[in-house]
């Protein structure tokens, strides 16, 4: 994605030229239960349809086992009439502002804000794809329907995949008020879908906070005060610094951190600290 080209309406942002073709919509999902009127517009969920027909959904919220990596894309994919087997979910990186609030609490990810914006995003993208197909076939959009990642024109028995339409659809304006499905039309929402992260968990490839690795990183542990509101009165780091692998001992507002070449050295350094609280 190379930058934002134009703000079509408050809830959506169409993103610029994409390396793999197709188009992307940025959607704003408010972070609180109530209105988001006081929060600046900042898309925090991104939906992309590329020219291969793959639908990629970036989820800014943190997956903690509550299922947002599966539930949020289901909402988009249902309104989009996507082929679920071609929907790919990406955990957005942690960023101070880019994805809005990234925390996961109080059912805010689905119930508190995403429900309508994500449905609108899926519905808007669907209407853009229908408009692109209708233009190509020179028929009215109302004569077309969508299913499993395709636009179909039953009258002439023609069909085009979303991938074939993605570039043309991306050149069209975002619809102001896309029609949302009647709940009776839902295919994915309300059905039992296996969690998309399960193969990662089962192979040990899922990345939790403690598994993040960056080049040349060191490992730290913090010795916290043994009482609420405690603080460091004095500390002697000389024994901790003698532990092989310990690089640095740093006083924090709430304790003392030991930084080392691996976790075990940090733990042993913390054990060797002499702290008066």
């Amino acid at each position, binding site marked *: 994605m190379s930058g934002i080209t134009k703000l079509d309406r408050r809830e959506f942002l169409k993103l610029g030229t994409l390396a793999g073709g197709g188009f992307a919509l940025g959607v704003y999902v408010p972070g609180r239960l109530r209105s988001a009127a006081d929060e600046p517009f900042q898309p925090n969920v991104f939906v992309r349809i590329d020219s291969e027909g793959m639908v990629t959904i970036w989820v800014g919220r943190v997956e903690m*086992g509550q299922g947002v990596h599966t539930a949020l894309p289901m909402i988009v994919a249902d309104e989009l009439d996507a082929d679920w087997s071609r929907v790919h979910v990406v955990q957005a990186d942690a960023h101070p502002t880019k994805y809005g609030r990234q925390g996961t609490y109080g059912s805010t990810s689905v119930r508190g804000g995403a429900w309508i914006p994500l449905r609108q995003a899926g519905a808007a993208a669907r209407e853009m794809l229908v408009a692109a197909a209708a233009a190509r076939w020179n028929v009215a959009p109302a004569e077309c329907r969508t299913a499993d990642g395709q636009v179909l024109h039953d009258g002439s028995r023609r069909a085009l995949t979303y991938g074939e339409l993605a570039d043309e659809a991306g050149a069209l304006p975002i619809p102001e008020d896309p029609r949302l499905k009647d709940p009776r039309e839902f295919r994915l929402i309300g059905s039992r879908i296996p969690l998309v992260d399960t193969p990662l968990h089962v192979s*040990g490839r899922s990345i939790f906070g403690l598994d993040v690795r960056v080049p040349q990183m060191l490992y730290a542990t913090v010795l916290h005060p043994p009482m609420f509101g405690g603080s460091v009165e004095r500390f002697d780091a000389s024994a901790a610094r003698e532990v092989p692998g310990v690089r640095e001992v740093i006083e924090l507002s709430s304790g003392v951190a030991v930084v080392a070449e691996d976790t075990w050295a940090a733990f042993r350094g913390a054990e060797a600290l002499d702290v008066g609280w």
Partner: protein
Amino acid sequence: MIPLTLRVNGRERRVDVSPDTPLLWVLRDHLGLTGTKYGCGIAECGACTVHLDGRPELSCQVSVSSAVGYEITTIEGLSANLDHPVQRAWIEEDVPQCGYCQSGQIMTAAALLAESPSPEKGEIDRAMSAVLCRCGTYQRIRAAVRRAAREVG
């Protein structure tokens, strides 16, 4: 520090660490095998379970020097393409919720079935009690172990 040679997931790996370092931290911090999880560090939770010559061991309690000479298997080495019967059963039963403990669960279940291909219900519960799951996926874990046992047996 004297370099040690370990055999991990079928490969020889040389590591230069203090010999009393628990195997867990050598796997995670030195060999980049982060599938093995740190839960408690005091042999209570089972999240760090790996195989030494096929037997389940808590890698937070095994010093790296005492793991020399054993065939060490971690979750990353259990199968090439998620085709171990236990992994397949885990997917079929949709076991994980947050997933953090699941490497330890799977390695424990795989070791159980290698030792006892058709375990009784009590045997499954006894073996799997070694690994805690804070999400409480125990019912699905039990169902998945039984499913894998049917496939193996």
